[in-house]
């Protein structure tokens, strides 16, 4: 059965309240914490720590607050980040209930206390770092590269402007997995359903005029789980921090697959 509740050892408990910074303009962040057990020790439950930061000391984004906490309060706080401008996809996390990039989510756009959790329904490596191995394995499974029998020529494979346009809204994806981890259907079947991020990537190759393996790419989706666990819930499109539309890409895959099966 799908497990709708967290296993007991995964339920966060109240954590540490860190000494608040003073200042006329402060914000409090509740942050998910968990560390793997020391050798021989048994694992503890995750906890929710509270940090109050002085906004005058930091930049404008949630990531700035996290970096400030790490630099000045608790150096053990762990999260992924790299580009700090929304192009690398490392800093995706659940902020006030929806998935965002910490580096592009302005603190001022959030109301009240700010709640920062790892991407939902993922195994936690440490603090805000989710284990993405399964997601990457699924991405790999759709063989996300150009597949063509035509030998490589002297120069690039050309596309008309119209053909190139079909990739807009697909190539911009930064594989942050905000969409997949926002999707209840992915929560319940993440071992078999590919999830919106990987399906949008599939569409990116299906729509590519230079790729010649469309039929096989689509046929590979025709089972109970890989594609058809999508019920057009739309949490993916609602949350994508790049403003992309995975649900629409998936609808395109479904109608192409139906058309392909109809003709055969």
């Amino acid at each position, binding site marked *: 059965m799908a497990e*709708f509740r*967290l296993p007991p050892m*995964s339920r966060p408990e109240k954590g540490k309240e860190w000494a608040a910074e003073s200042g006329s303009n402060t914000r409090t962040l509740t942050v998910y914490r968990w560390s793997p057990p020391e050798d021989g020790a048994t*694992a503890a439950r995750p906890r929710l720590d509270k940090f109050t930061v002085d906004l005058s000391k930091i930049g404008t984004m949630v990531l700035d607050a996290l970096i400030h906490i790490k630099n000045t309060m608790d150096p053990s706080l762990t999260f992924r980040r790299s580009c700090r401008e929304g192009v690398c996809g490392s800093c995706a996390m659940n902020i006030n209930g*929806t998935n965002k990039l910490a580096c592009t989510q302005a603190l001022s756009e959030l109301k009240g206390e700010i709640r920062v*959790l790892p991407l*939902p329904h993922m195994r936690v490596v440490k603090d805000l770092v989710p284990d993405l191995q399964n997601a990457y394995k699924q991405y790999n499974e759709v063989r996300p590269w150009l597949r063509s029998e035509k030998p490589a020529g002297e120069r690039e494979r050309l596309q008309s402007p119209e053909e190139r346009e079909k990739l807009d809204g697909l190539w911009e994806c930064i594989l942050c997995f905000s969409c997949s981890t926002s999707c209840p259907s992915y929560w319940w079947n993440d071992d078999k359903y590919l999830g919106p991020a990987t399906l949008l990537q599939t569409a990116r190759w299906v729509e590519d005029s230079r790729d010649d393996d469309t039929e096989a790419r689509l046929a590979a989706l025709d089972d109970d789980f890989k594609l058809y666990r999508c*019920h057009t819930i739309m949490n993916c499109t609602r949350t994508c921090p790049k403003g992309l539309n995975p649900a629409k890409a998936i609808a395109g895959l479904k109608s192409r697959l139906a058309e392909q099966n109809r003709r055969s």
Partner: protein
Amino acid sequence: MTSSDNTPQADRPLSPHLSAYRWQLTSLLSIAHRLSGVALIIGLVALSFWLFFLGQNAQASALVKIIFFSWFGKLVQIGFTAAFFYHLLNGVRHLLWDFNLGLELPQVYRSGYIVIVLTLLLTLAVWVGT
């Protein structure tokens, strides 16, 4: 497995999901479609038994009518009416999506609100207007 990855998978906590993710129009209307679908399955079974009892004789029919129009039976009927209208309207929304129509987020929200309002109006029309 890399060295940073030596914690057994089972020892790692699962991050909060259903309890932590914010409910929003997208997910609410989706689960409502599922719940109304399940309600309609029960409604279909009820409809079958209505037919069966009516098929028997006048006494059985009278009894069924008393049950159907008790205050509780009426309440259930109103529920089925609302579930039916919601599922039908949202079903049309689904069908449009399947033809790649109305999938942009603002359209999704607009059609979502239209479905809610029409469900209320139609249910009201059936139970107050007739």
